[in-house]
């Protein structure tokens, strides 16, 4: 099992979600986050007051996947979240030791 975390542009979220649903991925955790990597923020001035946007709004998706579907999911996210511009985000993958469904204590991939 792998844990996938993807930081994407908020404007791409609906498309990514729809594309994942099409390949049978329904379960995910979504968080509204702020941050920056190479895409730095900028300063806007409105009526004499400066508004510095140094942390840009992003969406973080988290899901734990059976090994067999990891590549498909990664490809789907890459294809739908990419605009080609700086700030498109990143995908992180890490190995998961165990998953347990709280309701019935099922374990492993059955719990996903």
């Amino acid at each position, binding site marked *: 099992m792998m844990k996938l975390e993807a930081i994407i542009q908020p404007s791409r979220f609906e498309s990514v979600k729809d594309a994942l649903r099409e390949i049978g991925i329904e379960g995910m955790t979504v968080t509204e986050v702020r941050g920056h990597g190479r895409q730095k923020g900028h300063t*806007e001035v*409105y009526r004499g007051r400066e508004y510095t946007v140094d942390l840009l709004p992003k969406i973080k998706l988290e899901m734990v996947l059976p090994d067999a579907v990891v590549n498909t999911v990664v490809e789907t996210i890459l294809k739908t979240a990419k605009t080609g511009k700086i700030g498109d985000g990143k995908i992180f993958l890490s190995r998961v030791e165990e998953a347990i469904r709280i309701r019935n204590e099922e374990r492993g991939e059955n719990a996903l």
Partner: protein
Amino acid sequence: MPGSPTPLSVLGPQCDDERHRIRRLFETGTSARETLSALCALADRNIQQIFGDVLRVHNAAPQGLCLIALGGYGRRRLFPYSDLDILFLFGGDKAEQESRPLIAEFSRTLWDLGFRVSSAGRTVEECRRIEEDNAEFHLALLDRRFLAGDAELFERLDKKVLPGSEKQARPFLLAQLQKLTNERLARYGNTIYHLEPNVKEAPGGLRDYQAGTWLRRIVDDKKELRGAAAAEEELAANAVDFLSAIRCFLHYSNGRNDNTLTYELQTAASERLLGAENGTGGSRTGDIPRSAAEWMRLYFRHARTLNRQLLRYLEQKAPVPQSLKQRLLSAARGARLDAGKTFAIRDGLLEVLDLPALSDRAVTFSLFAEAARTSTPVSRDAERGIAYILTHPELPAKNKQVTWVALREILGADYPGFALRPMQRLGLLTEILPEFQLIDSLVVRDYYHRYTVDEHSLRTIEHLQELAEPPDSRGTHFTQLWKTAEQRELLVLAMLLHDVGKGMPVENHVAGSLEALEGAAERLHLSPEEKAEVHFLIEHHLDMSATVQRRDIFDAGTISAFAGTVGTQERLQRLCLLTYADIHAVNPEALTPWKAEMLWQLFVATSNHFSRTLDRDRLHASDEKSMLERVRAEAAGASIAELERFLEGFPRRYLAVHSAREIAAHLALYKKLGAEPVQTELTSKRHAFSLTLLTADRPALFATIAGVLAGWGMNIVKADAFANAAGIVLDTFHFVDLHRTLELNPSEIERFRQSLADVVNGKAPLEPLLKGRESASRARPPKVAVPTRISFDDASSDHSTLLEIVAQDRPGLLYEIGSALARLGCNIEVALIDTEGQKAIDVFYLTEQGKKLSSQKQDLLREVLQGTLG
């Protein structure tokens, strides 16, 4: 010899059979009231039998121990899966010690028979003491009922101990009950209009009725209910029957003490016509509800009855707390209003002094306008009085046709929600806006929305008015937008109508809402411009939210496209406020700080786009055929060629901020320029004036006009300066007549116009006008210090340099800036002037001999302006 207890093997099946029998009877039409009594009798019988058995087995006497039913069980209203609230009352500590094993066995047996026992144990002495952290126990004790055991002990508690201690604890119990009730109501957002309501705890639920009953008992209100109060009590009894039937149904359907009326159970209850068939829940017209949504309207009507009654009791017993300042203000306001008036402010509430006068709708609406202006709630008593007047056949309504002028007073005030809420409860809102009836108590099943459609719509308005003092950081950015929004009455009207399409048989609710607007606009006699504005806000009410969520708001193309849809800064401001409030009113968590920030970013980027692209978007009149036709229809005798010549080269903003009628009026002025080289038009609107001036461009024109206005003591709050391709300048100044010179002396208006024309034409000098004003106006120190900020932007425009100035506003400021620009040879191509409280925000598009300003000129200008503005 101790007798043997009745075995569980006998009691258990007996109990189950009886429970099944009661359920079957309920499901075949027995009333909730009888069902609850039957369940209570079943519990009573078993408790008495088991208690007797346990005493026998332990060879114990009942002296010094008795069992008391509390709360709902005490009132003989026991729902199928409710807890049995029981108090074990002991004569003293010894009795308590000796009873322990007996009580353990008794409780265990009841559990085994399927009763959920929730018990407490106290000695008589302990009952005398008030437990300050356990008000719920003392409130439950108000409904005490003897069950079994030592009857004399109960008698002592009931007749000798508690009456005295309860009388003494009255203030404490009252305060605690009010606190617990207010906390409970707040937990549910202080509204009955939940899509999936909890029929016990939510506002309008059974708990409301109980809390109201306790309030009356605590204050020992033994007055016989008469007239309206008796009728209200009867309605409340019907409502209790209806809600009790639902709660029974929920318990049986869920198999547990779960009181949430979910979508699925709404459908099931409506199919069974629960509560609607026996007259207790029938609609006013006797109709049988045909759908779950219609059945839910019955639910909300009963919930409204219970909630209204509770709120009235709460208000009577607890006046709204006020600060000293508020009290002084209220007293002053009240004293002013009292004499010969129909209403007055007392203890922070609007009270009616002359009830029959309210049969005149004009008077009623002036009361609501006062509520909306001063953020004063209309008292529940006043509301009840108005309700009585509205339905009293001996007092026929006068002035029932409410005008847009009267309604605008309410919708455009700072706190429209303070009027709209009671107006909705009284049916006055739907009297003037029947379209709102379409969404009355309407449940639209939706994963995100928490409230009925009407409740959502009213909440949007309340979220806006609370921006005056935002309760959390999400609203901080938007406060200033609300305070400075123009035509708020149109924004609020759009909010009332934006979702009424959800109550219409249409596929797209926005189309339905727009259709409803047509009728409302005609009935209220909205001007074409006002209707167009409300139309835009309704049609695009989801656009800003969609742009935030589905577009890259940091992309210039997104901003440009969005700005193209919106058109003007003023409209953007209203749309942004609508979007903020619309998201906020979906549910308490819908507007996350993240979303609020994104919305603000989109607003700022679009706003800056408007101010930085003014001279990029110029009009080519021949491309605007439909607009030309519209203007020509207003301008009798004008030719298309004439119109094209006039409009060619104006910034597009000119079209966006002026109606066809206004453009036609400008054209008429333009045609008269040959006879008189300076044409002016002066209009007034609510203490503010608008001056339009047309003339051929000339050096220092803008500064000269600003100077004349300053010389006459006028405070400029907003201005536009545009020029067309032929060099005709059209300046519009909105100003406040600080000394009411023009208002109090109408003859001065002509002198003012002449003075303006003379100075602009060079026939009279400006300096003498300014001299008299200077010393007086400079003496006043500013209330809020605004630091000066001067910035140049060479990138936004192809032809001009943008100069943006933010500075402390003061009379004559614009004249000083304009003069400095003229002295340094800068030509103003476009100007956009605005104020926000004591802050002046001015944007100028400048050229010098037809080109952008050199960097040296910019430095010099910065230095000069810094010196002038400080």
